[in-house]
C-alpha cells in the first residue's frame, strides 16, 4: 500500500527521486522554524525535537502549516523585508503535506541533522540587573484573555544606559506576548495593585510625561523572540525613579496559573549618540464602528519633516481589525509598502524589524489604512451580537495604531522637529486636543520661544482646566521670559491644585531665591525634600539659602548630602566650597572648588573663589 503511494508520488515532477522522510526533509524545517518554541520549557504546548514528537502530530503539522497558522507570521510576503521571518515557503509546506500523507516515514538515520543547540536561561547571558515581580499574579482557569500591566521599579542610584532588555515571562504557557514600556512619569505605579492583585488591567497603557523624552525603542517579547542588543550608540537611558511597565497578554490554559515575570537589564557605559524615535500614526478618534459593519476604514498619515531611516514597525488593533496596511509615498510620488497584514490576529501581534533600515527622505508621507469587521461573521468579535464600538483600552474597544521606529539621518538630534510635525498633525485631527497643545508648548519652550509656548499652554488649559502640570509649565515658561510675577501666580495656582507638587515647589523657590526672599524659598525647598529626600538640585539650593540666612551647620549638612548623592553636580560643589570658605575651612573649600572646576573648567566664579582663599 505504502509502496504504491510512493511510486505514484515519486512520478510527480515536483518531487525528487523519493518521498520525503523525517530525517532528511522534515527535521531541517522543524529544527529551524518550529523548535525555537516547540521544545521543553518554551511556550509551545509540546516539543518537536524528535521523530516521535513529529510523527504523533504529523496530520496536525500538515494541516496547521497548510493553513499558515503555524509558524505564526502575519505580514504578507514582499511587502516589507523583515528580519527573523518565520514564514514557510510553499514548497516546504508541500513537503510536509506529502510526508504526512505517506504515513510520516522516519527515513535513514544517517540523514538526520544534529538537533539545534539552544541557550538555556537568559539568552544574552547573566543580566547586570534583574527585577522580578514581588508577588505572583494568578490567572483564572477559564474566561476570556486578560491584558495585565505589571510595574517594576529598577533600583538604580544613577543614570544607566541600557543596551538590551530581556523578558522572562515566568509562565510561558499563558503569556501570548509582552511589551516593556518606559515610564518616567511615575503614573503607572499609582495604578499598580488598586484592584487587590499585582498590576493593573488594560490592553494599552498611556503614559503622559511632563518632559520631551520620547521612548525610542520597541521592547517586545513573544514566544520564540530572538534577543539582540541595541546598536552600540543607541542604548536607552534608565534614570533613578524610572519604572518599567510590562504589558502582558495572558491566555487562560484551563487550570489556574501563577505568573511571576522578570526583566533582565544589560547596561553599557556608553551613552547613546544616536536617538531613534517611535512615531505613531493613529486615528482612534475616528473609531466609531456601527454594529454589523464589515469594512469600516480608519486612516492616518504624516509628512516627514526630516530624512529618516525606518528600523521597525508595530501595527496594533484589537479583535475587530481585519486588514492592516502601512504605506510610504515618497516625494517623487512612488509608493512603497511598509507592511501589509491581510488577516490581522491580535494573538500574534509583533514588532517587525526591517532586515535593512528603510530610508525615507524628507517629504515622504507615511500612511496607514486599517479595515475593521464588526459583523457577527467575524468570529473574533468580542460582542455577540455585535455592538457599536469606539476606542479604548479594553478588549471590547478598538484601537488604530501604527508605530514606526525611525532614526533621523542627520545630527544634531532632530527628534523635536519630528515630534513637532506629529503634534501639529495631531491638532489637525483633534483641534482642541490637550496633549497636542501641551506638547507643542513644551517643544516651543525647549526652542526658547516662551511667548509662543505660553500661548499653547494656555490653550492646553482650556482643554483641561485645573491641570497643575500645565500651570507649572506655563509658570516656567513665563519665568524664562522674565515674567517672574506672572510665573509665581502660575506656580501658586499649581500648588493650590496639587499641594504636594514637587516641581511647582521647586520653581516657586527659584523665584524667591532670585528675589532673595530666602525664608520663603527655604519653605518650598523643604517641601521638595519632604517629597523626595534625594532631590539633589533642591538640596543644593536649600544649602545655598541656609548659608544666606546664616544657618551654616544645616547648610553644610544639605550640601554634603547633595555632593554624596551626585558628586558631579556643579552647583552643590560650588555652594559647599563657599560655605566652607566662609567658616574658614580653607582646605576643604579649595577641594570643592577644584572639583567644581573639574566639572566646568571655564567657570570664572570658582576660579575667583579659589583666588580669594589664596589657593589658586
Amino acid at each position: 500500500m505504502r509502496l504504491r503511494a510512493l511510486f505514484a508520488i515519486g512520478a510527480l515532477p515536483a518531487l525528487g527521486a523519493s518521498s520525503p522522510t523525517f530525517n532528511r526533509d522534515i527535521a531541517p524545517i522543524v529544527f529551524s522554524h518550529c523548535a525555537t518554541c516547540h521544545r521543553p520549557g518554551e511556550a509551545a504546548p509540546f516539543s518537536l525535537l524528535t521523530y516521535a514528537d513529529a510523527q504523533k502530530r504529523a496530520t496536525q503539522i500538515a494541516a496547521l502549516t497548510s493553513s499558515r497558522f503555524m509558524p505564526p507570521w502575519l505580514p504578507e510576503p514582499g511587502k516589507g523585508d523583515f528580519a527573523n521571518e518565520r514564514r514557510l515557503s510553499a514548497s516546504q509546506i508541500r513537503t510536509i503535506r506529502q510526508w504526512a500523507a505517506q504515513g510520516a516515514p522516519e527515513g535513514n538515520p544517517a540523514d538526520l541533522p544534529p538537533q539545534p543547540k539552544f541557550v538555556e536561561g537568559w539568552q544574552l547571558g547573566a543580566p547586570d540587573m534583574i527585577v522580578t515581580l514581588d508577588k505572583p499574579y494568578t490567572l483564572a482557569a477559564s474566561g476570556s484573555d486578560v491584558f495585565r500591566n505589571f510595574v517594576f521599579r529598577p533600583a538604580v542610584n544613577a543614570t544607566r544606559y541600557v543596551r538590551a532588555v530581556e523578558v522572562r515571562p515566568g509562565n510561558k504557557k499563558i503569556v501570548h506576548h509582552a511589551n516593556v514600556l518606559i515610564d518616567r512619569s511615575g503614573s503607572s505605579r499609582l495604578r499598580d495593585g488598586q484592584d487587590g492583585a499585582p498590576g493593573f488591567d488594560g490592553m494599552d497603557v498611556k503614559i503622559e510625561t511632563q518632559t520631551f523624552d520620547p521612548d525610542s525603542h520597541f521592547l517586545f517579547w513573544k514566544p520564540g523572540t530572538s534577543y539582540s542588543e541595541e546598536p552600540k550608540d543607541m542604548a536607552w537611558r534608565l534614570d533613578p525613579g524610572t519604572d518599567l511597565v510590562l504589558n502582558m497578554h495572558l491566555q487562560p490554559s484551563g487550570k489556574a496559573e501563577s505568573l511571576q515575570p522578570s526583566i533582565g537589564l544589560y547596561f553599557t557605559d556608553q551613552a547613546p549618540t544616536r536617538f531613534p524615535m517611535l512615531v505613531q500614526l493613529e486615528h482612534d478618534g475616528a473609531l466609531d464602528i456601527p454594529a454589523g459593519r464589515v469594512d469600516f476604514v480608519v486612516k492616518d498619515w504624516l509628512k516627514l519633516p526630516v530624512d529618516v531611516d525606518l528600523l521597525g514597525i508595530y501595527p496594533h488593533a484589537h479583535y475587530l481589525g481585519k486588514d492592516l496596511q502601512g504605506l510610504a509615498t515618497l516625494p517623487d510620488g512612488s509608493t512603497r509598502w511598509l507592511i501589509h497584514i491581510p488577516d490581522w490576529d491580535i494573538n500574534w501581534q509583533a514588532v517587525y524589524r526591517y532586515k535593512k533600515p528603510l530610508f525615507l527622505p524628507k517629504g515622504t508621507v507615511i500612511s496607514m489604512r486599517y479595515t475593521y469587521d464588526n459583523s457577527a461573521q467575524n468570529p473574533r468579535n468580542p460582542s455577540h451580537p455585535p455592538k457599536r464600538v469606539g476606542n479604548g483600552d479594553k478588549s471590547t474597544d478598538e484601537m488604530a495604531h501604527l508605530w514606526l521606529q525611525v532614526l533621523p539621518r542627520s545630527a544634531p538630534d532632530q527628534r523635536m522637529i519630528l515630534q513637532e510635525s506629529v503634534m501639529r498633525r495631531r491638532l489637525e485631527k483633534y483641534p482642541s486636543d490637550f496633549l497636542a497643545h501641551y506638547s507643542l508648548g513644551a517643544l516651543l519652550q525647549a526652542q526658547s520661544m516662551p511667548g509662543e509656548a505660553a500661548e499653547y499652554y494656555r490653550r492646553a488649559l482650556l482643554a483641561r482646566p485645573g491641570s497643575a502640570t500645565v500651570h507649572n509649565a506655563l509658570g516656567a515658561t513665563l519665568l524664562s521670559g522674565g515674567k517672574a510675577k506672572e510665573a509665581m501666580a502660575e506656580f501658586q495656582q499649581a500648588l493650590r491644585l496639587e499641594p504636594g507638587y514637587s516641581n511647582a515647589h521647586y520653581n516657586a523657590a527659584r523665584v524667591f531665591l532670585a528675589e532673595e526672599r530666602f525664608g520663603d524659598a527655604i519653605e518650598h525647598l523643604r517641601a521638595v525634600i519632604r517629597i523626595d529626600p534625594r532631590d539633589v538640585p533642591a538640596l543644593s539650593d536649600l544649602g545655598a539659602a541656609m548659608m544666606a540666612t546664616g544657618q551654616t551647620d544645616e547648610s553644610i549638612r544639605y550640601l554634603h548630602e547633595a555632593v554624596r548623592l551626585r558628586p558631579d553636580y556643579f552647583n552643590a560643589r560650588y555652594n559647599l566650597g563657599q560655605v566652607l570658605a566662609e567658616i574658614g575651612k580653607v582646605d576643604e573649600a579649595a577641594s570643592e572648588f577644584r572639583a567644581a572646576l573639574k566639572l566646568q573648567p571655564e567657570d570664572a566664579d570658582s576660579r575667583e573663589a579659589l583666588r580669594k582663599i589664596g589657593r589658586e
Partner: protein
Amino acid sequence: MRRAFSIAVLAWGIFASSAVLTTLDGRRVDPLANTGAKAVVLLFTRSDCPISNRYAPEVERLYEQFAARGFVFWLVYVDRTESENNIRKHVREFGYRFGALLDRKHELVSLAKPVVTPEAAVYARGQLVYRGRIDNRYVAFGKARQAATEHDLEKVLEEVAAGRTVQPKTTRAIGCFIEDLK
C-alpha cells in the same frame, strides 16, 4: 409496553458494540454498558492538546450540571503511549472530578469515530446521539471566539434530560487530530 420493548432492542445494539477498557485507577469497565444512566458522555482528550486543555473548565461545568441528573461522564485519553503517571498528573492539574479511561487500542475511537480532541460522544439508551464539538468557541485552530455562542453538547444533554427523542447528530470539532495517534 411497546416503548419498553424498543428500548430493549436498542440496548441490545450497544452490547454488541461495547468495549471494556481500563480506568486510570485500574478497574476494567464497559462505559457503554446499560447501568441505568440517562446518558453516557465520552470526552476524548489528550494531555498535550492546548484546545482540549482550555476546555477543561467548561467540561467541568457540564459535569457539575448533569452528573446530578443521572448522566455519566468519562474522559477518554486517546494517546496510546502516554504513561499513566502523566495522565494522572494531567487529571489532577486540570481538576477533572470524573473517571478517566485509557483507550490504548482505540476501541472507543473506533466506535464513536471522533476526529480530534476535544470531542464529545453522547450515548443515550445505548445509541450514539451526538458526536462533535463541545461548543462553537473555536472556528479554526488558533481562531476562537471570546466566548461560545452555540453550546452544542449542552443542548443535546438538555434534550436527553428532558426525555425528548434526540435525532442523532454530528458536528465538526476543532482540535488535535486523533489520526496521528493511530
